[in-house]
């Protein structure tokens, strides 16, 4: 017979669960409020969400580094903390975009905000564990919420986007499961630290390499899908186009941060084990991704699709850094996303406020370049700010993304991959063209029509958000140092 198991609460280290619980409870509170009174304005939910996230943020900040909890399922190491901070922070700044002057469909649902919070909880679980099961469950929780959030935009395009994302996500989930199965077959464990131990002992067994490679490939497919790497990126432009701008901007940052954390855990492990092949596979995919998406972005007619391709390219950029498997490389991922986040927030917010229900400029697109023609004449500040974001994305110093970019390239150089840095440089040059294209439209062309209605959606809170994004983008030079040393400390503390 089984002995009754006694578990002390102390040993569970429940505090590790606190951040996720906060978001979940927050989501439930919103649902309950809705039950009690369903005539409430969206701004309440927005603010509630931000408040919950604020508490969450504090809770994460208070966590100690390198703790495990709950039978070692929870892992609170440096990257888990910083990635949670990024996830929460990103969510906090994207949430207020709901506060447009015009109401959009999804924001009339309190469930939207509940799902949003659940999604964040899912991401948090994903990053705060090295157990493939929890990662998988967290991933799916977040993904399923996200699919729903996209569909809630309630346009024909959003359904299409949701279906595409969902279907491909289901396929990716299959690959993830299969990959985990192979890992499990190899090591008898799905906990990565254990996996690493066992694998290290089995590296020299003959005939096993094929399975090791195969396991990495299967997992790679799942994460390449999430990270939108070639050739698993095909959903990105369509989904971004179908989703609302805030969500699209959000998708280009937060889910990727979560996926990167898991990728670091998994593929970093492979590379640490000496499976150089994985490194080369990732490098190859990364280089193809950034190049191909760049040249595809060149020919886009819609700003949002262009930004979608650009986010693919940025992801490829970062993926290359991940393949380096150095502390600097890993730091650069977070630094990059932390900086990219603000710029992206600004760019998508600018798109968001110019969004109309009907397409006024182009039958196919919401945000064709023509819409922004002659912006400088219509609203100089708006054009200047948008141009700042574009320049930042293009990597023009001293705007935020530049610092991320330079750090990534420095990491590549330090790891001995000068060619990679050169490829990155050339890619940035190609990318500059399409960012420039928008600037050209805004500054160098004459307005086409409906000049007065472009900033349809503008509201005070959005102006604040954009202002914040602008300051964060311009002033990056002043906070890069503390950010960087914090990130680097956290990452090296957790041994990556």
């Amino acid at each position, binding site marked *: 017979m089984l002995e009754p198991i006694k578990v002390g609460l102390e040993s569970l280290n429940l505090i590790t669960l606190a951040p996720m619980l906060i978001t979940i409870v927050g989501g439930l509170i919103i649902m309950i409020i809705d039950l009690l009174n369903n005539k409430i304005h969206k701004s309440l939910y927005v603010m509630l969400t931000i408040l919950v996230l604020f508490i969450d943020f504090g809770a994460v900040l208070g966590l100690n580094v390198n703790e495990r909890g709950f039978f070692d399922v929870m892992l609170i190491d440096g990257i888990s903390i910083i990635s949670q901070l990024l996830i929460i922070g990103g969510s906090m700044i994207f949430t207020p975009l709901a506060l447009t002057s015009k109401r959009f469909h999804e924001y009339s649902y309190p469930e939207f905000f509940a799902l949003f919070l659940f999604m964040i909880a899912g991401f948090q679980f994903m990053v705060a564990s090295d157990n493939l099961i929890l990662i998988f469950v967290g991933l799916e929780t977040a993904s399923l919420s996200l699919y729903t959030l996209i569909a809630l935009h309630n346009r024909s395009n959003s359904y299409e986007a949701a279906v595409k994302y969902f279907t491909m996500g289901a396929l990716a989930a299959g690959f993830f499961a299969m990959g985990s199965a192979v890992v499990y077959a190899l090591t008898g464990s799905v906990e990565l630290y254990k996996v690493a131990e066992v694998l290290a002992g089995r590296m020299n067994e003959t005939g096993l390499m094929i399975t090791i490679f195969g396991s990495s490939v299967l997992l790679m497919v799942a994460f390449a899908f999430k990270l939108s790497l070639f050739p698993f990126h095909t959903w990105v432009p369509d989904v971004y186009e179908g989703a609302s701008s805030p969500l699209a901007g959000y998708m280009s940052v937060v889910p990727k941060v979560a996926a990167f954390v898991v990728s670091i855990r998994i593929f970093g492990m492979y590379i640490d084990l000496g499976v150089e092949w994985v490194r080369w596979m990732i490098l190859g995919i990364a280089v193809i991704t950034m190049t191909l998406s760049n040249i595809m972005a060149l020919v886009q007619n819609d700003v949002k699709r262009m930004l979608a391709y650009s986010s693919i390219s940025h992801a490829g950029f970062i993926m290359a850094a991940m393949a380096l498997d150095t502390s600097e490389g890993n730091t650069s991922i977070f630094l990059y996303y932390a900086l990219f986040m603000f710029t992206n927030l600004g760019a998508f917010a600018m798109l968001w406020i110019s969004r109309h229900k009907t397409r006024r400029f182009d039958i196919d697109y919401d945000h064709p370049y023509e819409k922004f023609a002659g912006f400088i004449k219509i609203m100089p500040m708006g054009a200047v700010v948008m141009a700042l974001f574009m320049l930042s994305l293009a990597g023009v*110093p*001293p705007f935020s993304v530049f610092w991320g970019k*330079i750090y990534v390239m420095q990491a590549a*150089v330090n790891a001995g991959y000068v060619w990679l840095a050169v490829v990155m440089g050339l890619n940035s*040059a190609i990318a500059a063209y399409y960012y420039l294209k928008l600037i*050209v439209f805004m500054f160098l062309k004459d307005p086409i029509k409906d000049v007065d209605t472009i900033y349809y959606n503008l509201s005070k809170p959005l102006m604040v958000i954009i202002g914040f994004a602008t300051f964060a983008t311009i002033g990056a030079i002043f906070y890069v*140092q503390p950010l960087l*040393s914090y990130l680097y400390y956290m990452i090296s503390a957790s041994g990556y």
Partner: protein
Amino acid sequence: MENILSVLVFFPAVAGLLGFVVDKNSIRTYGITVVAIEFLLSLWLWLGFDMANPGMQFVEMIPLIPDMGISYYLGADGISLFIIVMTTLMTLIGMASMGETKNIKNMILSLLFLEMTMVGVFVALDAILFYLFWELSLVPMLYIVGAWGGPLRVYAAIKFFLYTFTGSLIMLVGMLFVAYIYHSLTGVWSFAITDWYALVLPVNYQLWLFVAFFIGFAIKVPMFPFHTWIPYAHGQAPTIGSVILAAVLLKMGTYGFVRFSLPMFPDASVLSITPIAVLSLIMIIYTAMIAYAQKDIKQVIAYSSVSHMGIIMLGLFAMNAEGLSGSVFQMLSHGIVSGALFMLVGMIYERRHTKLMSEFGGIAAVMPKFALIFGIMLMASVGLPLTIGFVGEFLVLLGFYQVSPVMTILAGTSIILGAVYMLRVMKRTFFGPLDNEENKKLSDLNTRETWSLIPLVAIVIWLGVYPKPVLAPIDNSVKALLSFMDEKAITQEAKDLIRLSNTTKGGN
């Protein structure tokens, strides 16, 4: 005022920000006042500059991102001092003579930001800071070319931006690599150029890094075969754009060679003398010939710029004080002269809305003042003694003669070919019968135009007759640079060449 360099850099930018609130009708006065103050500040810098000290002065250093070794590090030496003064001067004069009326506010503000980046490039002693200003300078220029230019302006603007951007990204990789080496040797991260100077690199590293930096700088210079953006940029840009572009932006490239390539990679520099000289020769001769084939006055001057930049490049790689000082001096001279020429072309364009030589002829009769000033600048451009153009060109050729007499003879053809295309412009535009009806009622320069050109004429003659106040500090710094290179070079060949090219036989 120890932090005068910071003031110099940020004063125009702050003024630019504040300028957003200034009323559209007063913005021109505002802009001119600001750049005039900036010019006075740069004169103050000159005044406070210790001419006898060849090293960096007015140094400011504030660590910005210590973890990456990036700091806010400014300083000026004899080489940068005058380029800064020239920058502020040309901005002032360019703005004062500006005839644009369309969207004047945006133009003025762009110029102010542009001035910040230009000054920034020349005072930055931190590689990343340098890169920052370098890249930022593209943005206002893009706007100026793209918004106020000719029919192909957008193409020209994008080409200008992307070309330079691409090159500088390669350069950035080079910078990162140097920082990496610095770190692996010393354990400290640093992007400070002065720290980098201390690095002694193996020759093959030097060569690769030299190439990386070369691509960045060569596109900006622009060296053959990377020069094709410039005819478009100049051809399409508004007058002020061309003036700034020719006077200052091109100098960034050559300045980069002096600041980075030469002291950091002395052996590679010595090794690359021949390839660079060959490219420079192609620039000098080939573009001079192309200039001769042009039909548009502005294009002639644009191509002549390339040709003159070839001379500057040649001087940089003469590896002796004569050539290097001459080269730096020639940067100033080319800045002033080509700036003035572009202004002149702009003035005639404003009157006739064409720049084609075939449209003109004999206008010296109706615009004598214009013809006179154009003639003076033309003569300075072809390097007439006692004008500013001669000193630099002569010293460069003199310096390079020690390296290769044959190449110097080929390069010397610039004094012939330059005269050929320039005199053709003069003849076809100003001489001959005044037979185009539209030209008969052209008005001569007005007061504003005259007074904006007269300072330039004065400088052209003053520095041609008495270049010492400018040349001496340059020479000081250049000598220090050369002895530093000699000390640092690791191959005997490089040492020998640097020594050899600095000694005259017999005498003294």
